[in-house]
């Protein structure tokens, strides 16, 4: 299992990444590799910087006034802060699913078609096919195929979150960032999402932020433990959970704090 985790190429790679919000430093020299077709879990107590790190990968932090950065992140070996890199294209290639499901108040169909449309797909049959295939990938198609015109807000919480995953997949990303995607869901809906993550890693590089230790243990291949803006330890999930090399990691995992 560990050998398998090493086999795929590095997809996302952070190099000495510092992030500041105004005067406070949120990330300290993060260096981390996430491999293709693997799930990398980011764990750690609230405010440890794991979400900030996630949002650095698709440059969502750029939207925050007063954000400053040193060091960089490479996607397929290429600097995402290179002036030639178009942030729009970057975000198309790096999809994101948020903690709270946030479908647009539009129809189910329009939610999924939104991304393709803004990237210039206007042909109806192509859009139809994108909507169908991505809803299938998100394991939502069978539940909604008869009411694609219904409002996305009429779906249950778990369905909404899968719709948001479908919406993210519809622009054909290579990397999928998930920020506590199941934290607002009940156990049943959470299980569906976790199952889905297993299927999706066949095609995508996934980074997932989670508060839930069991979830990290269940879905991820690699786990990174963040504490106070620093990457404390990173390694194969099985190793991190059974035999961490740092005392702090063990304390957190065994629930002694956090």
């Amino acid at each position: 299992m560990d050998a398998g985790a090493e086999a795929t190429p590095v997809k996302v790679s952070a190099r000495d990444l510092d992030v500041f919000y105004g005067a406070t430093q949120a990330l300290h020299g993060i260096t981390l590799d996430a491999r293709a077709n693997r799930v990398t879990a980011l764990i750690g107590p609230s405010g440890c910087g794991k979400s900030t790190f996630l949002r650095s990968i698709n440059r969502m932090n750029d939207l925050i006034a007063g954000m400053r950065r040193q060091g960089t992140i490479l996607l397929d070996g290429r600097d995402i802060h290179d002036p030639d890199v178009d942030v729009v294209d970057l975000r198309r290639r790096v999809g994101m699913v948020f903690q709270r499901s946030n479908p647009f108040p539009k129809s189910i169909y329009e939610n999924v078609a939104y991304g393709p449309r803004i990237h210039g797909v206007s042909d109806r049959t192509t859009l139809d096919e994108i909507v169908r295939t991505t809803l299938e990938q998100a394991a939502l198609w069978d539940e909604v195929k008869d009411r694609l015109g219904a409002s996305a807000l009429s779906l249950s919480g778990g369905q909404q979150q899968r719709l948001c995953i479908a919406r993210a997949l519809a622009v054909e990303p290579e990397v999928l960032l998930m920020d506590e995607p199941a934290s607002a869901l009940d156990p049943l809906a959470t299980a569906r999402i976790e199952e889905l993550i297993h299927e999706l890693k066949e095609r995508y590089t996934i980074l997932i932020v989670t508060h839930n230790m069991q979830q990290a243990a269940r879905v991820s291949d690699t786990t990174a433990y963040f504490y106070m803006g620093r990457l404390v330890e990173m390694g194969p999930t099985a190793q991190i959970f059974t035999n961490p090399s740092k005392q702090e990691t063990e304390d957190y995992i065994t629930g002694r704090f956090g």
Partner: protein
Amino acid sequence: MNESTAARPRALDAVAAASSESRRRAARRAESLFGAVVRTAAFAAILVIVLIFVFVGREALPLLWQDATPGHESETVTWSSLAGPTTYPDRPPRHVWQPVSTVPKYNLAPLVVGTLKTTLVAILFAGPLAVLAAILTSEFAPRWVSQVVKPTIELLAGIPSVVLGFFALMVLATWLQQILGVRYRLNALTAGIGLGIAVIPIIYTVAEDALAAVPRSYREASYALGASRWETAVRIVVPAALPGIFAGLALGFGRAVGETMIVLMASGNAALTTWPLTDSVRTLSATIAAELGEVVFGGPHYRVLFLLGVLLFLFTFAVNLAGELTVRRLRERLGGRA
């Protein structure tokens, strides 16, 4: 039908294909264009304020540096003729606004007096009513009372001022005349009460906001000491909100000074400098409205009317700025509702 999810569906390549470099470049262009458009629109808001000042001022200014034409000194307008009394050979000097006469007199004193009289009546009438009503709805009233008072205020705010002017002229004037037995139906009191109705909503709204911004913790601290609701309201909440209440009064005052139709219709429009509130008056705003239609473009009278506009603009600008800043500071200090 049977496509496996592992095989890359063809349709998905469409997104990458459509998202070409040229398209992205077009999107970036649209982006910067739109950014420029909204920035321009926002700039227009500033521009309008500047233009108002410049263009109203532009029509008034030539007045102040033109030289007296020899032989027509009495027709030219000077600072002293705007402010000082007119002297007569056979009578004591008086402040006179008499723009249409063989020797036009542009003394502003009667207009300033008229404006002050009507606005003071308005504030004295509207201030207590609006502030007390605001205290009622924010501190004491059960829900149903607020549900009557608040829509009433909103409706009152929605009444066009020409309708209030009409009401003051047709109804209020008659009532006041019957009650007080005054000589002139249209006077400072009638116009002032009409104006008061117009400014109640603004005073109420600002005062209510200020009261609501007082943190709940202040009230709870007072209740915990055994103070009753009214004691808390009078000793804690109202003093804390006082700057906001004053700001409301100031904004109401600014509005009353600038309001035109009500005073134009209900004040009698006689430019007198007498003290009784039951005399007719002529205000700055009503003078502009009444006389601008009949003046020669570019003449001294025309320019004096624009000068009145400049005065009104500057005055309301200052009052609003002061009121606005007070409200903002109060809100920051109380740290209540954003």
